[in-house]
């Protein structure tokens, strides 16, 4: 038996080997394309995180929008402050009732067109009135209600200062002494 057959099938074949080849031939490698099974069960893990993130973003956006909208709506009311601020502290409380629209009295006597005018006029001061009321609260500090202790302390303080001032002046007067007539004469001469 030559070994050539075993190497490159060139020599004389051995019948035993040929038999073995026939038996194992069915198991020989046959190159073919990969065939994937058509019915594959894929298990998707459902993740809710992205959905939650989107929902949270939307909620935040809506909330921010509402907040901005509410603030933006308030802004025109307070916007008057810029114009009226310097004059506000001088506005006396008596002026406020005049600014108020007298809806009860005017509604009976005036025509519809006048009513419109009056309401239109009334709307402007109303915003001012609101502002004035608000600003007065801001500008005027609450008055300090004097307590009994404070009043007593003030009284004592005044008494002490009276005495101190009186005695200090007494010392000054005594230190200066009575002015002699000669001194006065000299002063006249110089003057």
């Amino acid at each position, binding site marked *: 038996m030559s070994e050539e057959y075993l190497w490159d099938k060139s020599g004389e074949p051995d019948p035993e080997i040929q038999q073995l080849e026939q038996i194992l031939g069915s198991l020989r490698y046959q190159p073919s394309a990969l065939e994937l099974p058509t019915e594959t069960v894929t298990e998707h893990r459902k993740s809710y995180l992205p959905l939650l993130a989107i929902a949270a973003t939307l909620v935040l956006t809506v909330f921010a929008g509402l907040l901005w909208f509410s603030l933006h709506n308030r802004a025109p009311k307070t916007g008057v402050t810029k114009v009226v601020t310097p004059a506000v502290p001088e506005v006396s409380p008596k002026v406020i009732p005049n600014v108020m629209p007298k809806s009860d009295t005017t509604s009976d006597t005036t025509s519809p067109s006048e009513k419109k005018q009056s309401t239109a006029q009334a709307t402007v001061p109303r915003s001012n009135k609101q502002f004035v009321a608000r600003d007065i609260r801001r500008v005027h500090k609450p008055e*300090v209600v004097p307590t009994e202790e404070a009043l007593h302390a003030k009284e004592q303080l005044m008494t002490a200062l009276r005495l101190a001032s009186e005695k*200090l*002046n007494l010392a000054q007067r005594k*230190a200066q002494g009575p002015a002699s007539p000669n001194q006065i004469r000299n002063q006249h001469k110089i003057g």
Partner: protein
Amino acid sequence: MKSLLKTLSRMPLAISLCLIVTALTVKAQDAKIQMAHLDHLASRANETVDVNIDERLIQLAAKIFNDKDEDEAQIKKLVVGLKGIYVKSFEFDNDNEYSAADIDSIRSQLREPAWSRLVNVTSKREGNVEVYISLGGPQINGLVVISAESKELTVVNIVGPVDLEKLAKLEGNLGIPELGIKPAKQKKEEQ
């Protein structure tokens, strides 16, 4: 590490500031004299004035001074930095109700260099008046006035920065008749 070094470098400054504040506080407190030993005179006196106002009470009283009132505004300015006002005044029916020891006990606390005597008027007929001041730099830290008349003994102790001129001017503004003492400059101007 750098921040630690920075903090450590600032420590001496902070400590020195604390020391200065403490020293100033102690100095201000030094201007307070003991007058409790005069209390025994109250039983002999016809009229007694005893005023003890500490810093807290001064601040409390200062709050209720009306700033719109010129006099009260002046008083407020005068007292606002004070640490305390203490007055003891006794009026007797008879002469020699108090002893020289009573006055000496006050005088003994007013020694140099902490205190310097500004005025000392001795008169057998009108009594003695002494004015002491405690100086802290250019500012007056404390004032003591001892007025010892035949039937009256008054000790005034003001602790804190005192404006003597303003204090003297208070007489006449607090319901006390003015004694007609005017500074020399003012007299000249009037002439």
